[in-house]
């Protein structure tokens, strides 16, 4: 008897844990107490109830149900209420085929840089990759996928999600391995696309029944220890620009000022020119006027001008010496220590007469 009960219990546990009739122990007790015939009836009733319960199933909107008859896949059911042969003839496995799931491939770059890879290779960051130019890049990414074919997903591969992770890593590394660090840092979308294509074809080849919706790249970068030197380049670039700006500033300060100064010089020369010409014209006009009058009476005008000029000049002079034309030597008579212009007004005379 015990065997039958175990079987039944196992079956119930297996099928539907929460629906275990709560009065099981009660039935058991009653069974022991009652007569044999009644017990049989109860057993049959319970078995029938369980058979009835395992003869239908409900598939949610996001799911598809895979039905196996004695282990063999016979049909796949869409969402809704369905009938089936009771356990153990047919079994149902429901698979979520609508909802997208994500697998994340990332880790802190700093952690890896600090960690000792030689001692504990397993802690190596999933994102640390060798690039096509033999540099090291940090490439974190996310795979979004859903089950496209529940039959393949269930039956073809032992561990479809593990396979997805392995293939995702090898696909991404293959893509990264064929690109240089520049492309990895700058062309993320292109890498995501290439990796997605690669991964999808691998998953298809492996018959996983998984459809990759999208691979999303997070920020790709260089490893932590290298990062400061990249920042240093940015800083140097800014310094360069600053130096250029400073020089330009200086240029822009000096040149307009010089242009102004040059303009002033030219303007001054123009002023000079005007001044010079106007004065010349003035002088000429004056001369011409005087000349006109002079022409009318040359002798008298000449004498007048001469005498007027002398009259004007002589009183202003510091010292005037009048020497007689017979005076032979005038040196003894002169004190030439005083500053001023000495004009020998006439050829040396023989006699001199000093006058203050």
């Amino acid at each position, binding site marked *: 008897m015990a065997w039958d009960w175990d079987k039944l219990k196992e079956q119930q546990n297996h099928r539907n844990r929460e629906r275990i009739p709560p009065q099981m122990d009660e039935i058991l007790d009653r069974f022991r107490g009652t007569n044999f015939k009644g017990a049989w009836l109860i057993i049959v009733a319970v078995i029938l109830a369980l058979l009835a319960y395992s003869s239908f199933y409900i598939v949610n909107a996001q799911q598809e149900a895979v039905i196996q008859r004695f282990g063999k896949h016979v049909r796949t059911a869409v969402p809704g209420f369905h009938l089936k042969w009771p356990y153990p003839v047919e079994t149902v496995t429901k698979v979520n085929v609508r909802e997208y799931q994500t697998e994340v491939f990332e880790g802190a770059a700093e952690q890896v840089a600090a960690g000792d890879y030689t001692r504990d290779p397993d802690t190596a960051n999933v994102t640390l990759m060798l690039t096509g130019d033999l540099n090291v890049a940090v490439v974190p990414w996310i795979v979004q996928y859903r089950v496209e074919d529940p039959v393949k997903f269930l039956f073809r591969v032992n561990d479809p999600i593990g396979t997805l992770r392995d293939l995702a890593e090898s696909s991404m590394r293959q893509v990264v391995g064929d690109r240089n660090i520049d492309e990895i840092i700058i062309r993320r979308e292109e890498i995501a696309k290439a990796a997605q294509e690669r991964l999808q074809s691998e998953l298809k080849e492996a018959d996983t029944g998984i459809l990759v919706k999208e691979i999303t790249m997070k920020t790709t970068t260089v490893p932590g220890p290298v990062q400061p030197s990249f920042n240093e380049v940015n800083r140097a670039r800014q310094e360069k620009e600053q*130096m*250029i700006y400073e020089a330009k500033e200086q*240029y822009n300060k000096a040149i307009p000022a*010089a242009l102004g100064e040059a303009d002033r010089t030219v303007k001054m020369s123009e002023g000079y020119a005007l001044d010079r010409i106007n004065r010349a014209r003035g002088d000429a006009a004056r001369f011409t006027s005087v000349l006109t009058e002079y022409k009318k009476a040359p002798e008298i005008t000449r004498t007048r001008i001469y005498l007027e000029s002398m009259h004007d000049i002589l009183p202003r002079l510091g010292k005037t010496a009048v020497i007689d034309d017979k005076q032979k030597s005038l040196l003894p008579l002169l004190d030439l220590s005083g500053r001023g212009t000495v004009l020998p*007004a006439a050829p040396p005379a023989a006699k001199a007469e000093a006058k203050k």
Partner: protein
Amino acid sequence: MNAKHVAAAIIVVAVLVAAYSAIYVVDEREQVVVTQLGAVKGPAVTEPGLHFLIPFIQTAHFLPKNLLQWDGEPGEIPTAEKTLIWVDTFARWRIYDPIVFWQSTGTVENALLRVTEIIDPAVRNAIASYPLIETIRTTNRSMEILDEDVKEVREAEPQAQVRVGRRQVMGQIKQAADASLKGFGIELVDVKIKRINYRKDVRDSVYGRMIAERNQIAEKYRSEGKGEASKIRGDMEKELKRIQSEAYWKAQEKMGKADAEAASVYAEAYGRDPDFYDFTRSMDLFRDSLNKDTTLILSTDSDLFQYFKTNKPR
């Protein structure tokens, strides 16, 4: 409860047990090797569904039919150029001959040990017989240099080319291992390199190289900045000289022209009577240049004094 009933119940149970032992269910994921008293009986059962055997004499051994994983332990392997790298591989395989498989290994756990024993050296051999680049790159696709900072430096060096590439290296591993695994009824579907990373010391030197490259670029920028700033200052100096000299030139030209015009005005005017000009100009000169500091020595012989000694005209 009488003895008759008990006997009936025992018989029913015995029949049920026998019936239960005679049937077995093969899942989509499974295949079965049936043995009869220890010896393999008939072909393997690969078709899922309900199957029968003779109770107590025949035994069903369930083996997986679907694709199985093998995840290698990461190992340190030197490449052809003796760079030590960590290589982490994985493989996928299936039991293609369940009977051979069952006879040679028996269980998946045992089989995985065999797979490890065979794939590990194959990986080691393949990696060690190629330069690192061959296991990194798959194709010789031209890598575009997008970093303006290093364009000049990088474009100068040729891009590493591969002769075989990762896919072929992996193919070679697979080929080498597959042949040996066939004997275990195992079909190796593929072997893939999951991760390749530098060993720490190598990685540090790669980082060093990357840092050095960046520093070089930074220095390049700084000196470019200095150079360009000097160039701008030079331009400025030149421009200043040009502006100043052009201004000087223009000014002198204008002044010269003015001087010339003035000269011509003077010449035109004074030319009418040079003597008179000479006379008047001399008067002006005397008036302007003689002052109280001047000592003038005049001879009575001069015109000024013609009436000094006499009242008669000379």
